[in-house]
Every structure is written in C-alpha cells, then in structure tokens.
C-alpha cells in the first residue's frame, strides 16, 4: 500500500517536472493560433512545423556542428582534467594545494566576465570560424579537475605503492590504474561536458560568422523573432529536435552521472 502511494506521488511529480517538455512536444504539432489560444493538445497533429523549421534553417547541419563541438570538448576535458587531477593527487610537489585551491577559486569567476578577453585571444590566434576556437577555451574545467581529484583520492595509497615497487611508471599508473578505476567519474564528467557544451549559445555566436560552423542554439535563436510575434510551433519543433540527442545521452548516462557525482563525496 505504501509503495503504491509512493509511486503515485513519484509519477505525479515526474509529470509535473516533465510538463514543459511534453507541452513543447504538443505545441510543435499545433498551429500558432492554437498555441496563443492556450490549448494543451493540438486538434490535428500536423508535422508542418517540423518541415518548415528544417527548411528555414539548416538544422541537420547545425546538429552536426553541435555534435562535433560537444564531442571535442568532452574529449579535451577528459584528457586535460584527468591529467591535472592526477598530478594534484599522485605527484607531490611544493605548493600543490595552493595551486589546486587557486585553480578551484577560478570557479567563482563567471564565464561571462572572461568572454571578451577569451574572444580577443581566439581572434588573435586566427581561430574565428574554426572548431579550435569553439572548443579550446573549454578544455580546462576546474569542476572537472575537482571531481576527478576527489575520485583519485579514493584510490588506496597501497595500490600506488605496490605499483611503484613493481617498477610501474607514473604515466602507466595513470593509464592502467587511475583511469580504469574512475570510470564512473569520467563518464559523469563526459556527459556533463557534452551537455553543457551542447547548450552553449553566446560563445559560438561570438566566434563564428560562417554558417558552416554555427551550432543549433544559434539556429534556434534565428527562429525566434524579436519585435514581431514568433511562430512558436516552429520554435518548439526545433527545440524538440535539438532535445533528442541530449535526452538520449541522459537516459543512457543517468546511471553514471549518479554514481560519478557521489563517488568522490565520502572522502573530501
């Protein structure tokens, strides 16, 4: 009995949380007039909005660019953050903690405050309209370093000691012990990195001028009119299309995110 009530409550809250997405889906099948009239369900399910959205902006192409941008950032973050975290945990050097904490402190600086200096750097490097410009500034992520450092710290010191006794080099230990033992944290970081990059708008807008390297979020903004009314069914059709990859990733990766984010929580 108690279980039934729990599940009813869970289903209800799931519906409440999921409502915006369900409504977006429903609105993408409606006519603009129906949306403005405040209806919840379309009278006729029409796929016109999807057709028009795909015609109006090169949505597939933008999806492709967004995918590669997010993928490269994900890979870059995994490599850079794991190497940095490894150094912070397994290589003793003077001022290690000071460096680590000042690194963490940069999390306090909002990304928006550094966006223009970063842009100027990218501009001077000639990386405008390139994947390098889109992805490179995101490779070093303090949150990622922190997450992995916490996880690496849970690896028992005895493993490290016996590995050294057997003549294992630092780099081999990184590849063969540290990384495989932190799969859950690495997957969590990978998913986190992919999703946040997928949702970026301002940075891709700044560093690209060419349609060949523009992302879905810019495409979405192109559909939203500013002074005149927007065709919300088009916008919602595009939103649903853009959501699909991220939702898939979440469904697949939810388990790892949960494991990974709590894995390092016990030992601080």
């Amino acid at each position, binding site marked *: 009995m108690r279980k039934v009530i729990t599940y009813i409550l869970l289903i209800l809250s799931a519906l409440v949380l999921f409502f915006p997405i369900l409504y977006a889906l429903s609105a993408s099948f409606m006519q*603009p*007039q129906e949306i*403005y*009239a*405040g209806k919840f369900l379309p009278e006729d399910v029409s796929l016109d909005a999807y057709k028009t959205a795909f015609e*109006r902006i090169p949505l597939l192409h933008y999806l492709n660019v967004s995918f590669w941008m997010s993928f*490269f950032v994900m*890979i*870059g973050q*995994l*490599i850079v953050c794991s190497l940095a975290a490894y150094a912070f945990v397994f290589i003793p050097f003077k001022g290690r903690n000071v460096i680590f904490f000042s690194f963490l402190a940069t999390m306090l600086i909002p990304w928006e405050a550094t966006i*223009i200096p970063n*842009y*100027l750097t990218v*501009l001077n490097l*000639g*990386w*405008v*309209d*390139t*994947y*390098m*410009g889109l*992805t490179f500034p995101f490779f070093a992520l303090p949150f990622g370093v922190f997450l992995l450092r916490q996880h690496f710290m849970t690896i028992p010191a005895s493993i490290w000691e016996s590995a050294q006794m057997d003549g294992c080099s630092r780099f*081999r230990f990184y*590849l*063969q012990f540290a*990384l*495989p033992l932190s799969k859950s944290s690495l997957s969590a970081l990978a998913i986190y990195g992919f999703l946040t990059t997928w949702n970026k708008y*301002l940075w891709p*807008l*700044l560093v690209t*001028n*060419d349609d*060949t*390297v523009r992302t879905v979020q*810019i495409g979405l*903004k*192109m*559909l*939203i*009119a*500013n*002074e*005149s*009314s*927007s*065709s919300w069914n088009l916008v919602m059709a595009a939103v649903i299309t853009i959501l699909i990859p991220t939702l898939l990733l979440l469904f697949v990766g939810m388990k790892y995110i949960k494991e990974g984010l709590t894995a390092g929580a016990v030992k601080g």
Partner: protein
Amino acid sequence: MKKYWKSFIVLTALVLVLAACGGGNSNNGKSNGANNSSGDKTEIDFWHAMSGDNGDALEVIVDQFNEQSDSVHVNAIYQGSYDDSLTKLRAVGGSSEAPAIVQVFEIGTKYMSESGFITPMQEFIDEDDFDVSNLEENILNYYTIDDQLYSMPFNTSNAVMFYNKDLFEEAGLDPDNPPATFSEMTEAAEKLSEVTDYGFTMATIGWFVEQLLANSNALYLDNDNGRSGDATEALVNSEEGYAIFEWLDEMNKAGTFTNYGSAWDDPRGPFFAGQVAMYFDSTANVSSVIDNSAHEVGTAFLPSIDGMDPNGLVVGGASLWITNQVDEEEQDAAWEFIKFVTQADIQAEWAASTGYFPITPDAYDEPVLQEVYEEFPQFLTAVDQLEETTPNEASNGALTEVLPEARKIIETALGEMYEGKDPKEALDEAAEKITDALK
C-alpha cells in the same frame, strides 16, 4: 595494458586532427570573409539582428542584390539580438573580423556615432549626390545629428494600439471609434473589463513610455532631448510624465488594467485569446496580430493626454551603419548595397513582408505594398500616425548613450508602481536615476 596506450594515442590523435582541421577552417574562413574579393566582386559582410520571418525577408533582399550587382557580393550574417551584435562589434573593432555594414537599433545611435568605428552616412550621400528628399522626413529626423545623417534608417516602426472589435461591441462601445484620450481609455477599459478579464494592458517596456511622452509633446531629456547638446538631466517627471504614470496607476488600481510581464510576447497571447481588449504593440507586428487573433482586430493611434492634440511618435527600429574598419573599396561597396535597399520597390517589398514602415513614401505607390494594405487596412493607422507626426524635439526622440539603461530604469519604476508605489514617487526616483546615469 596495450589497450590503454592505444586508446590514449587515439584520443591524442583525435585532438591533433581537430587542431589540424581547425587550422584548415581558419584559412577557409578568411577567404570567405570580408577581406578578399572573390572573382571580380568585392565581398562585404553585413551583420544583422533579424530573426524569424523578418530574417527570411532580409535574406531575400540580400539575394536579390547579389544577383543584380556585378561588382559587390554581400554576406548577410545573423549576429543574435541587437545587444549581442553590438557587444560583438565592440570586441572586433580594429580587427579584420569587423563587418562593412552593421545594423544597430535606434537607441544605439548616439553610441555608434561617437564610437570611432564608423564612417558617417552623410559622407557617402554628399560624394554621390544622393537625394535624401524622397526619404520620410520623420524617420530621417531621428537619425540626423547636428544636420548630419550618420546612418541609413532601414527597418522602422512605432507603437500603435490594438483593440478587439468584437469585445467593443459586446461592451456597447463603438468599434469604429476607439478611445483617443486617457480618460476615454479609462472609461472604455472599465466597460470592457465587465465583458472580459481586463480592458487594457501594456507590456512593461520603456519604449511605450517614451512614445507616450512624445505623443504629449514632452521632452525626455534636457538640451532638446539631447539634440542641441549632451543631455545632463532627465525630464521624465514632468506634468505629462506624471499624467501617464497616474493614468496607468488608476486603471491598475481599479482592476481594469493588468501587467502581464515585460516581454513583447507577454500581452500578445492574452489579447489573441480575447482575455484583454486593448494593448499597445509595435507596428511591425500588425499582420501577425490579425492572423493570430480569433476576433476582429482594430488599430488606433496611441492615446494622448486629455485636451491635447496627439503630437506624434518617435520612430523605433534600426538603421544601417557603414564601418570604417574595412578599406575604402569595401565601404563604397557597402554604400552600393545601402542605396539598393533604400529604393522604393525594395522598401515596398520589405515593408510588405515584415510590417515595418518603408523609409521612402514612394514605396506606398508600389503594388506589392498596396495589396498588403488593402488586405490589412489596419496598417494604415500606423502609416497615418507616422505622417501626422509633428516634427519637433519631442517627436525626434531622445538621444543619449544611456538610453538602454534609462529604459530599464523606467521599466523598474513601472513595475514598482504596479506593486503599489506612489506613481509620482516612482517617477521622481526614476528621473533621478536617469540623471545620475547621464553624469
């Protein structure tokens, strides 16, 4: 063990490949960019902020230009909202990424004219003996500073009142004779709120207050709205300003007015659904209001203070600027494009597909625009309102770099008043804050 080495090498290789294709792209980017000419045509970049249907309409015009011109090719690049695009322009100033033409909203006029990024439009006009007399006077007045035209108006609009004719009939009001003064509005709103939720609403957008002040022949800033010298003081808390705030406050307290929010789209849904009977919106939106409403839609002039003839409104929208960040050949190419878009037939097409005003009155004679006006006679109200505007300092509009900030301040004051603050107090504080911002 080998497995991990392998995966590491693969990943590193991937990053290197990414770097390599990054490099390749950057070369492509440059050759596509503003600096080189492809074939015989000079290529120029045009940054704009037109999205949705308006973005499509702009693409059509740019394509038309590229097809008919043998010497110039324009790349239209969407740069997000007006704010986004201005931010980006500030960052690229002085670099090879700067565009030749940029579209900037009307309240960025003062900033742009003093930014050092631009070549005043007047120079091209004088050099080419371009005749500006066939452009709409009221629109030119806004963009003219010290008798110089700094930019070419492109998409212009002003505010108009939309009302629900069906609800007017239901409430016993004459649907062909909409209220024209503040007290008539108050009365109508009271009657209308008996047949529906609310009589009147206005999105909390500072622009509408600017329009109402102009319509009351009241100045926003001293020194003739900042046009005869730099503005030093806000004049919004004048008799007229108080009248506007008190009028809104009175209806709000009586429950015949409501505040749906501060976004353009906020009052539209309720109006389309017939929950509110009258609201202000941009003239750029006329056709979509008619399309989306289930009821018959009327348009009317913005109301004026009792016993006062409407003075007319300030034009809003945006203008095109030629930058001095590219060489002269490209600036001349930019001028070619700007001349093209001011032609009557192009302006008519643009106005017909967007709802903005054409900047040249000749465009009204073009069949494409006449057809639209026949289908939607509601457009004519907006056109009449523009033409009946008395050109003076009030209707030329305020000119200051801090206008975007002033707008936010006015919006905050409106919000505070709707929450119960005394209208005079709210407006006095707003005026003080704007004056501070001017210093």
